[in-house]
């Protein structure tokens, strides 16, 4: 239900080269995407792993709760991945974001990009992350050592970036 990848229930949304794009509630690792990312013509693979830090602004963080709007988040991730492929002419992209309760050190986000050469692979990888920071309907609440919690200040996604309403 949460995966807009190859076995997605909405295949019309899956663009060529997007190996997976969606939200998950289970453990993530960059290693998960390494096997499927890339084609025989690709010389460069860039993988990004976002991990839960054990502190933020001087506060010790004991856990992070990610809330999300999964159905929309799947769509947004698919759109961003497809856009990365078109814009940077990379060959494959995979992106997964975890929601639920995460402990420090656990992986919240994985982005994998492959391309013929390294320049486009790095640029497309960075593009995917910068876009999802603006558009992905996911929110995080930090849990501190004393049991208190706080939603993190987000970035206002105040309207569509382009006519078709994409991210």
């Amino acid at each position: 239900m949460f995966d807009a990848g190859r076995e997605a229930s909405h295949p019309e949304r899956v663009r060529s080269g997007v190996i997976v794009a969606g939200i998950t509630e289970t453990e993530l690792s960059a290693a998960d995407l390494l096997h499927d990312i890339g084609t025989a013509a690709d010389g460069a693979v860039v993988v990004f792993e976002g991990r839960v830090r054990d502190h933020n602004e001087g506060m010790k963080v004991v856990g992070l709760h990610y809330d999300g709007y999964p159905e929309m988040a799947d769509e947004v991730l698919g759109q961003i991945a497809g856009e990365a492929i078109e814009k940077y002419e990379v060959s494959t992209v995979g992106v997964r974001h975890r929601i639920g309760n995460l402990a420090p050190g656990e992986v919240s986000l994985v982005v994998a990009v492959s391309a013929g050469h390294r320049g486009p692979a790095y640029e497309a990888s960075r593009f995917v992350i910068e876009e999802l920071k603006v558009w992905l309907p996911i929110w995080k609440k930090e849990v501190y050592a004393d049991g208190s919690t706080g939603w993190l200040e987000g970035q206002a996604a105040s309207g569509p970036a382009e006519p078709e309403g994409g991210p």
Partner: protein
Amino acid sequence: MTRTFRIAVRLFAGHRESVGASELEVEIDEGSTVEDLRSVLASHPAIGSLLGGAAVALNRRYAESHVVVSEGDEVAIIPPVAGG
């Protein structure tokens, strides 16, 4: 007399906690735009003050203020996002 309809508005993160529910049902006039929906929500005691910075999504896409909300649309208020 203008026909009205009731529509469920999905809430997330701090909004959900403030309201104490994951959705809110509101009644709007047929032909209402996203902007009209925001006006109706603005008078809601729990959510009204939280709308600044929030976006509206219709059917899982960000919607501009002039877009018309139709009966049966999936409507959500998207607080400033913080993924990654």
